[in-house]
């Protein structure tokens, strides 16, 4: 039984690679419309979906239940607000909005409607594995966790993510994922110290971040560097073991090359991970398969009322607050206290 008809606004990287294929693969969700000018691409990929050029068309369409905002960050607030005003449920790609103030306003406007943010990397295979190792006690007390998202891109590209402006650059783009994961593991830190920089020739927005989250004794470093090859993903040192994982979760590449979440190869990790035990011995770790599909299954189940929503708007708001605290820390060269 179909619970809902879904319209995706935007058919760039987020809409094309992530949202449309994941929605199409979710039993019970129907990809009914895509708002984009790329009509021929959409017709080829999703013959059953309408391609429309103006978001207004899906806001006024009474058959549409759920709107997915997968546009550049600067339009998240306006489109989500209009969708909510039209009585639609809303999924927003991360980051939720440009500012935490905008995010709070959206939460106010949601009233009774589902509002969530696509923090899909909670379902990265390596993160799921790490979470399990932490919960089961294999790692003991975690002293240090470094979570990296390095993509070697030495040349600045002309795309909105790399232009100047609020909520642009890698701290908002990739940092939002890493923050959400850290919050899932450890909750809110006591303080945040961020170093953000634009270091490539011609760079006008953040292309490097190194952010330290301070907990009582645990330290978490979130880092992304456009001048670093993808190598380390997680380095975790605990009293029980260290967990070392190289390489990025394969789901984005799998989706980009047309693999469906139902395909056997989807989400299968090819890069091995290892535990280093006290005394120096090592043990291979099998990384469980990633499953971004779980995000839309959760949205569906929440709409059906059979399960709580996996990513709450409040959690996404906390990510926004920490992104801003990071900016403030970098600007003033000091730690920003994040607990109230």
């Amino acid at each position, binding site marked *: 039984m179909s619970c809902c008809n879904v319209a995706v606004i935007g058919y760039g990287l987020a809409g094309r690679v992530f949202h449309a294929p994941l929605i199409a693969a979710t039993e019970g969700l129907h990809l009914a419309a895509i708002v984009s000018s790329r009509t021929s691409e959409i017709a080829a990929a999703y013959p059953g979906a309408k391609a429309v050029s103006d978001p207004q068309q899906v806001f006024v369409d009474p058959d549409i239940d759920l709107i997915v905002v997968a546009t550049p960050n600067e339009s998240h607030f306006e489109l989500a607000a209009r969708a909510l005003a039209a009585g639609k449920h809303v999924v927003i790609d991360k980051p939720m909005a440009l500012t935490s103030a905008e995010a709070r306003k959206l939460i106010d406007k949601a009233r009774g409607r589902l509002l969530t943010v696509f923090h899909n990397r909670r379902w990265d295979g390596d993160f799921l594995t790490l979470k399990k190792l932490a919960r089961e006690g294999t790692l003991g007390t975690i*002293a*240090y966790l470094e979570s990296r998202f390095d993509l*070697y891109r*030495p040349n600045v590209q002309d795309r909105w993510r790399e232009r100047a402006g609020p909520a642009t650059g890698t701290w908002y783009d990739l940092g939002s994922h890493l923050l959400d994961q850290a919050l899932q593991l450890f909750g809110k830190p006591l*303080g945040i*110290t961020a*170093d953000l*920089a634009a*270091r490539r020739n011609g760079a006008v927005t953040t292309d*490097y971040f*190194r952010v*330290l989250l*301070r907990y009582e*004794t*645990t*330290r978490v*470093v979130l880092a992304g*560097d456009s*001048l*670093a*090859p993808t*190598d*380390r993903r997680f*380095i975790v*040192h*605990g*009293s029980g073991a*260290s967990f*070392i994982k190289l390489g990025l979760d394969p789901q984005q590449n799998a989706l980009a090359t047309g693999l469906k979440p139902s395909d056997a190869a989807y989400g299968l990790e090819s890069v091995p991970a290892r535990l*280093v035990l*006290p*005394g*120096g011995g090592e043990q291979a770790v099998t990384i469980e398969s990633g499953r971004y599909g779980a995000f839309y299954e959760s949205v569906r189940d929440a709409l059906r009322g059979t399960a709580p929503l996996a990513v709450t708007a409040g959690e996404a708001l906390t990510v926004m607050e920490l992104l801003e605290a990071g900016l403030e820390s970098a600007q*003033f*060269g*000091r*730690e920003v206290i994040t607990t109230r």
Partner: protein
Amino acid sequence: MTLQVAVIGYGDGGRVLHAGPVARTDGLKLAAVVSTRTADIARDHPGVRAVADPAAVFADPAIDLIAISTPNTSHFDLCARALAAGKHVVVDKPFTVTAAEARELKRRAEASGRLLTVFHNFRYFADYKALQAMIADGTLGEIAYFESHFDRWAPKVPDAWREKPGAGSGTWWDLGPHLIDQVLQLFGKPLAITCDQAIQRPGGGATDFFHALLRYAKLRVVLTSCFLAPEQELRFVVHGSKASLTKYGINLRDGVDPLPGTLTLPDGTTREAPAGAADSRDFYIAVRDAILGTAPQPVKLDEAIAVMDVLEAGDKSAAERREVVL
């Protein structure tokens, strides 16, 4: 001419890093060790005089060079007394426990005309020498990021002066000086430092974790030490315009480094990095030659003072939770 050397202190540092290499270096003679560990000294160095009081070696006109490997808070006093007695002096790192003390010792050394230098022996280790060569010969290109680790798996807190609260204790002052000195050699003085320090092990009395970010115009340097991390893990991570280097395993031994790093080129291909080689006598060979006037002093006092300035700025940054401009 053979220089007569006295080592003060016979803990791990005095025994392994000073007395051993001194005894093996041509032109130096280990003449005396100041320590109560007489049995250890007799076993390791038969015939070498063991004395309990440093005054005995200060007063001995036959002693040319004094190596100080004692708890950090005693460095200033012992250096000052050795210089006053007309001796050349090597002091283990950290130079002293305040930059003001370090500057005062520099004045006294210059007035005495004696050599005073600080044991920044990490300049002579294989991993650093290989790295230095790869930067100098352009293998790595322009460096955008440099990360240097001194991690240890030491989950139990030993009963040692380093692990107790006080001036110059904890890993920032113990292992930090090595990492700082290397970076100052490679990149010069940073614009600013942001340093986080923590006591992570239950029962710890002094810093056992640090994460220091040194900010340069574009370059970023991270120095870090964690006592709950495996020692064979990361040592150096360097991202340059021509290659990235990842080097595992800290190597403090003589000979060719058995774990050379891996270079990743911009096209994604990888190859083994050149391996460095080390000889633990090198620092003392350089000291000997400097005293004999045939070579410049190995670690200049201004360099050692610069390390002290960074250590103090790191403490200030950690205490005030903000970046400190240097």
